[in-house]
């Protein structure tokens, strides 16, 4: 049950000794429905942490608990040495960028951004300067006097960002802020958001269901599934070292190999490779891009740790820089392979992968 709490242990080399934001064993249910089951998660100062999960995984609820719009049934939330979960939202040093922006329709862009400063009684002389500097940061200076209704979705997004950032929160919470934007604008916002975060140095907790977005933006990803944390790790680690088959499938594409291990040798259909896993049944994740095609002329043993097998091309999908292939390697076993610029392929070829790239994962729902 609690074996997925690895998120509680920030990496040992993490620069900050004490986490800025600490979520401890938080549980939350609505009626009979359990939405969060014992979440523990530390966020370091200045970190860009993404809470990633499918819809219904509880990621937005977790964010709302940090913001204060929901109260946890159990557990605590701490900011440094201040306990957050007992405070009403307006006393918490966090700000939220809402999915639907939630700009005040009766206030101009300037007044929207100034709202938090006025609410917290920042001195009047200071307000115009801070508002204008923040609007400049999100490139919305020229729309200062505009009404929110006259702005495009992307522009409203920037104002919402400025409205939250101007208060210099210790943690900025972003609830799928880019989901309403079209793909190109979203890519552009990824770059801007990331550089903005570096510029202001504020800790970002970002919620999304889009794994590509999570990979592009995050220092660390916390993958949530059915109200429990499945894995918390950097994008690279979570991609190359998935702990469970769910993580392996959710982040990028993978081949899940249900293998029999005997004396350090795993076998799954036509595939046989070396492993440190103990004997018995085990599941391995093998990324499509870890499999290479062996060109006919190449020397037989270029890489001694490589495992070779024969596969018949069943399907090839052109994907620009790389193609996705489905290969059949006997007994109906299908593997997905990603090759960069292979040209049209057909018939049977020899493929190889390195044994270390077959990562042993826990079975989904095994805990």
């Amino acid at each position: 049950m609690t074996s997925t709490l690895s998120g509680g242990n920030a990496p040992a080399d993490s620069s900050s000794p004490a986490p800025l934001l600490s979520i401890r064993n938080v549980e939350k249910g609505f009626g009979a429905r359990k939405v969060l089951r014992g979440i523990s998660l530390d966020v370091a100062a200045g970190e860009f942490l993404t809470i990633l999960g499918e819809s219904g995984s509880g990621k937005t609820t977790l964010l709302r608990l940090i913001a204060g719009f929901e109260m946890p049934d159990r557990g605590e939330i701490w900011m440094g040495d201040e306990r957050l979960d007992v405070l009403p939202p307006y006393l918490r040093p966090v700000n939220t960028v809402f999915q639907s922006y939630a700009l005040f329709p009766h206030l101009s862009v300037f007044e929207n951004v100034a709202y938090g400063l006025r609410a917290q009684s920042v001195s009047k002389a200071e307000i115009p300067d801070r508002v204008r500097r923040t609007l400049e940061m999100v490139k919305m200076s020229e729309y200062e006097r505009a009404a929110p209704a006259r702005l495009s979705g992307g522009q409203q997004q920037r104002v919402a960002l400025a409205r939250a950032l101007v208060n210099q929160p210790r943690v900025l919470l972003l609830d799928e802020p880019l989901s309403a934007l079209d793909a190109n604008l979203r890519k552009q916002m990824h770059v801007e958001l990331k550089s903005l975060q570096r510029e202001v140095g504020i800790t970002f907790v970002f919620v999304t269901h889009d794994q590509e977005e999570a990979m592009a933006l995050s220092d660390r990803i916390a993958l949530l599934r059915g109200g429990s944390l499945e894995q918390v790790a950097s994008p690279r680690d979570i991609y190359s070292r998935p702990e469970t088959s769910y993580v392996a499938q959710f982040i990028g594409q993978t081949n899940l190999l249900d293998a029999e291990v005997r004396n350090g040798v795993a076998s799954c259909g036509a595939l046989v490779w070396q492993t440190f896993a103990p004997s018995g049944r085990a599941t391995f994740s093998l990324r499509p891009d870890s499999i290479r095609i062996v060109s006919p002329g190449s020397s037989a043993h270029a890489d001694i740790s490589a495992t070779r097998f024969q596969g018949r091309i069943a399907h090839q999908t052109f994907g620009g820089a790389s193609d996705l292939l489905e290969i059949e390697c006997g007994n109906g076993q299908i593997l997905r392979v990603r090759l960069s610029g292979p040209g049209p392929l057909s018939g049977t070829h020899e493929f190889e992968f390195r044994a270390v790239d077959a990562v042993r994962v826990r079975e989904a729902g095994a805990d």
Partner: protein
Amino acid sequence: MYSRTYKAGVTLPPLLWIVLFLLVPYAILFCYSFWSVSPSEVIVHNWSLGNYAELIRQPMYLTTLLRSMRIAASVTVLALLLGYPVAYYLSFHAAKRRDLLYLLVIIPLWASYLVRGYAWKTILGTDGVLNGVLNFLHVTNALLFLQEHLNVFFAAHSLMHNWHVSFVPLSFLLYSPFAVVIMLTHIYTPFTFLPIYASLEHIPRNLLEASHDLGASPWKTFLRVILPLSLPGVVAGATFAFVLSLGDFLAPLLVGGPSGIMISNIVASEFGAAYNWPLGAAISLCMLLLVVGLLFLTERLERSLSFS
């Protein structure tokens, strides 16, 4: 799309209705307002502005109009003060009891106006329910005592002064502008409640979360987000209450007494006992102009306040 006959069939009846029963009577009224009545009580069809001059010359008309407006304004303020909190509570905090409470607010609208008028008569009268309760609690005696000892204060108190207060039993409760205000407030509070409730329901709830998130307390959130966004409803409700009270005829008739007479009572008497239709028509048209002007202004105000 639709045939000519269909379009005509749909639009003509209501158009005919409006022309026959609204525009034509107004036109007749308009004509009447320039005519006069001979001493032998015959309508004389010679055109003049005499009736309008009479309205200005006789201070009684302006006094009554001003009293009507004062009463309507009091009703408006009271109805807003009563309607807004109820609407606010229902929209933001009622949750499960909302449907029941909503019904309770609306039900009085279904009861006959006359019944409610007579109900207030029995409540406010000298032998009425309210005096009975106050007497039982010795409140009236206390007020009498206070009046004797603070005579100067009470004499200076314009409210009491205007409404000719005398105690034991509290006779000013009935047959006074006070009674008219009470009764009209009761009748028109649902009319302020409904548009305010509708405008509150239209406020996206995430705006409240955004406000709290930005550090505004619930009170600040009310002042800076909820109140401004509900102003169109407030203006609409105020318009209902003011315009409907201003032209009210039954409340002053039932509970107003001589000091609570309103402009509609004068119109009624001109068309009735006084038999001066032309003068009545002139007053009616002035009132119509006043109300249309008011509606025009509040309509524009409402539009400038809404942001959707």
